[in-house]
């Protein structure tokens, strides 16, 4: 049986979950469906942009199906959207109710602090995973219909990486929310980390001797292995999962130790 608090959390978040899912579905469908029209113009664009710029944007070659998918859905806007959804939903686990006072009645239920934090996070994590699985479902269905020749296994590997990337940032957001009980630090710190680590990964190849930078970026463990071409890379994915687990556990522990609502 699903715990009452998990059901309640889903119910309270349902508008946000549906909204983000619909938005991300529209985005994925639009770009995937656009592939056939885009093919012709891509070559032009690719010629028009300097190679460094293409690398920065994570666009290897726009003409191939893989390059196109990578450029549109899995390199910048896609991850940005799902990470934003994850931060919003994670903020609602602890920081938001603690700020608006609703925490008082939630926490008065017969659960230990740890069980409370775990159930809130579980509810948010399942919602975030569902939202991030939307592009997977759509790309897997739509790719064959627009003659994209990408192995299903590679789509799965890439989208699994995206899910773990999002878990990683959700874990960080959860830790900060569980620690401070405030929304602003969650949004500022997690947002800044997401942008900074994205940039670190993007510019690492452009800087002389800056290649090591990429190892600091979750984005590297997600997309640096080129999973749409090369498939599964368990070690890289494990790094993302480890960050998610460590931050989640740390968040549950700090929440167990502090004063609530001060």
């Amino acid at each position, binding site marked *: 049986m699903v715990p009452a608090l998990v059901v309640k959390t889903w119910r309270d978040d349902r508008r946000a979950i549906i909204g983000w899912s619909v938005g991300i579905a529209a985005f994925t469908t639009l770009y995937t469906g656009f592939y056939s029209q885009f093919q012709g113009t891509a070559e032009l664009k690719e010629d028009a942009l300097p190679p460094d710029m293409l690398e920065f944007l994570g666009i290897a070659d726009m003409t191939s199906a893989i390059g196109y998918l990578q450029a549109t859905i899995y390199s910048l806007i896609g991850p940005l959207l799902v990470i934003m959804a994850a931060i919003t939903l994670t903020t609602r686990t602890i920081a938001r109710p603690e700020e608006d006072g*609703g925490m008082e009645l939630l926490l008065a239920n017969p*659960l230990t602090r740890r069980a409370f934090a775990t159930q809130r996070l579980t509810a948010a994590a399942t919602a975030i995973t569902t939202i991030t699985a939307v592009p997977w479902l759509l790309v897997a269905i739509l790719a064959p219909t627009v003659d994209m020749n990408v192995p299903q296994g590679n789509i799965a590997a890439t989208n699994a990486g995206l899910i773990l990337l999002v878990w990683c940032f959700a874990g960080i957001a959860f830790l900060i929310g569980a620690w401070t009980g405030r929304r602003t630090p969650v949004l500022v710190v997690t947002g800044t980390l997401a942008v900074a680590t994205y940039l670190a990964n993007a510019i690492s190849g452009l800087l002389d001797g800056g290649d090591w930078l990429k190892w600091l970026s979750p984005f590297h463990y997600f997309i640096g292995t080129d999973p749409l071409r090369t498939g599964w890379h368990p070690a890289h994915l494990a790094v993302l999962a480890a960050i998610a687990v460590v931050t989640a556990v740390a968040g549950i522990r700090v929440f167990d130790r502090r004063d609530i609502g001060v």
Partner: protein
Amino acid sequence: MSGMSSDIAIHAEDLTKFYGSRRGVEGLTLDVKAGEVLGFLGPNGAGKTTTIRLLLDFLRPTRGDATILGLDPRRDKAALHRQIGYLPGELAFPGREKAADLLRFFAAARGGVAWSQVTALADRLELDLTRPIRTMSKGNKQKVGLVQAFMHQPALLILDEPTSGLDPLMQQEFLAMVADARADGQTVFMSSHVLAEVQQAADRVAIIRDGRLAALERVESLGRRAIRTVEIHFDDPVDAAEFTGLPGVSDVMVSGPILRCTVDGRLSPLIKAVARHEVIDLLSAEPDLEETFLSYYYTQPDQHTQIEGAR
């Protein structure tokens, strides 16, 4: 459970909470007996909410500790909160649902509460459960808070300013609910600013001021100690000097044939002095608990002269 849990519902020992250097509550030592109703009174910022939130393990004490129903608030939080009904002082509701949906969640989270229990309470408080809570008036929101606190018939009710926002009729209904809870053997710990409302329901009253326990008395003895205002109409003008200095008599004011004064404790010294004159009328206000209470609030218990100024 330990033997203590059977007769002591709340045991606080040197319970202290500082917010940084700011005092929330300090050195609170207090026992609440199982089955009693304790009114927890004090002015704004006295430390009532701080104490309550310490008991619920939302705050961790700087010093000292509490035992509730024989259990440790932190270690046994899950087991304990199943037996506690809590009404927060600053009520905010999680989510945007209808009252019924939120209460269904509480019912499920507390391991299943008969729905008839909820509707009975809602009927009693004349609360419409089909409305979204955020569209309700303050008093109706308060009723939702009361329903969720009482619905699982907890062994211990911890209520932070339960009557705030309720109209006088509903305040009476609430006090009847407390009386019923007491009759069923439930323990009630309720904070308030107003003595009159707890006086009806409470067995004992604890008064807290500046974070410290100022008094802890049975409601009856609070009444016995109370001062009363006396007004006597004589046939002829009297001299104030005859009445000043009588034991327990103060604030003597004479205007022509009318004497007004306050009496602390027994009336007989005044009555004996008064009997030397022809008395037309004697008015004695009921022992005013509110007045006694305010004296604890703002002055030492024996400095009654300042009370008039405080009112």
